[in-house]
């Protein structure tokens, strides 16, 4: 039996995507969607509670085995409240797993958890430490194109290529990560009317209310950089902390979330990215 615990939270993506209806083919409407995070409310971020629930245990184990890291992390804060919070976060869990999860969720609700975590991630990246736990990803979509196909039965097939960065768009030292997305999304409601022709499907999709939400699930395959060869040109040499993301190249991931509209005027997605543990 597959349980929810087999999905491990990695990071979240909020993005807008203006669309262009490129071609009508017998297979469906070919729609070009360009995902972007140029607006302030969009970006790649980490949901603290969900992150800590998935990875808090691993981070605690790592910090327990690496007291120097814990000291360095604490030293980055002068506020005694934040230092105490770090001590709490580093305290190993005990008891049954269910209790652990409840405790983790409680810890992540503490004030400033996001800032504490961000500082730990920065520290690990700067020092290029071999941290066994995933520390999240925060950044932007550099380019995100999806050549979607709207079929006559009201289903959209996604086939995308995204490039993610862990910095801002103009940050030349930031790490780039390729992501290939694919999946089918049924735009019709369960048991509701379904289009009979392609034109009908097109009209139906264009008429979707901008506030209407549809569930979306995509398979995602990442290509994150690994250790470069010592003889390689500077262009291909390691960017600070890039090995933090190697984990993304070594697993199968899914992006699950909500899609708002798909009209000509553009739309947005709110996705959580999870590793699928077999």
């Amino acid at each position: 039996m597959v349980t929810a615990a087999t999905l491990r939270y990695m990071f979240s993506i909020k993005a807008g995507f203006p669309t262009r209806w490129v071609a009508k083919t017998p297979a469906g409407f070919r729609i070009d969607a360009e995902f972007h995070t140029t607006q302030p409310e969009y970006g790649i971020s980490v949901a603290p509670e969900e992150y800590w629930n998935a990875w808090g245990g691993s981070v605690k184990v790592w910090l327990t085995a690496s007291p120097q890291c814990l000291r360095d992390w604490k030293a980055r804060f002068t506020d005694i409240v934040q230092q105490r919070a770090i001590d709490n976060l580093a305290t190993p869990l005990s008891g049954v797993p269910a209790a652990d999860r409840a405790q983790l969720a409680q810890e992540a609700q503490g004030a400033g958890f996001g800032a504490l975590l961000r500082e730990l991630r920065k520290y690990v990246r700067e020092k290029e430490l071999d941290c066994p736990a995933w520390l999240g990803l925060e950044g932007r979509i550099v380019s995100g194109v999806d050549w979607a196909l709207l079929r006559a039965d009201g289903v959209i097939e996604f086939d995308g290529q995204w490039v993610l960065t862990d910095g801002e768009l103009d940050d030349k030292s930031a790490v780039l990560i390729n992501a290939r997305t694919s999946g089918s999304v049924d735009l019709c409601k369960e048991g509701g009317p379904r289009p009979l022709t392609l034109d009908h499907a097109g009209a139906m999709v264009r008429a979707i209310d901008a506030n209407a939400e549809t569930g979306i699930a995509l398979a995602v395959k990442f290509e994150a950089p690994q250790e470069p060869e010592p003889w390689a040109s500077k262009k291909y040499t390691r960017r600070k902390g890039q090995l933090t993301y190697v984990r993304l190249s070594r697993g199968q991931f899914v992006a699950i979330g909500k899609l708002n509209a798909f009209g000509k005027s553009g739309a947005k997605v709110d996705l959580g990215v999870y590793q699928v543990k077999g």
Partner: protein
Amino acid sequence: MAGPAARKPANIVEQHPARRSTFVDRTLLYLFSYDVEVERDAQTVGFFPGGVRFNMLAHRNKSRAYNVMRDRTVAGVGVPAISGELDWGTDWSYWREDDIEFSHVRMTITTDEGDTIYGSYPAVVYLGLGGFRRLVSEKDKIGTEDKPVVARFVTTPRFQTSSAPYLWLNDLQCVGFGRLQLIRSEFRRISYDVYGLT
């Protein structure tokens, strides 16, 4: 005991049609050409198991599709010739350690009349003996501004459009004969002649 000949069905000759002694008919129909100026700022992901990954983007205002002969129609068929701008194009490339590049190209042409044509294709390019190491290495850069190195390659594009004058493109399997210019180990300009296989 029966030998191999005895096990062979008696009607084996009748099971195979007679082999042809001529090729099937085929024609290369010239459709259009395009030149892509590659953005200097490639999206370099870096080393990936087996090679190097990077993405090249077409320079939006400097990449064009056109008819080499300046014809207004495709010769011999009479359909409108294609002329316009490549307003979007990306090439997800993977230089493999065995000196072979694997690419996945996607592009959009906006014709001079404002119609949209979508194209996609894989490309396989032989980088030459030791090409991977020379391209990725700091030393021995390939090509100079005065003397760019030109590599040849072949692609198999497919195009899709809903524009009435260009619907004929949807039916064609195409082949593109390309040349790419390398300057200081970077792709700078890529040119194609695209033919329909008929």
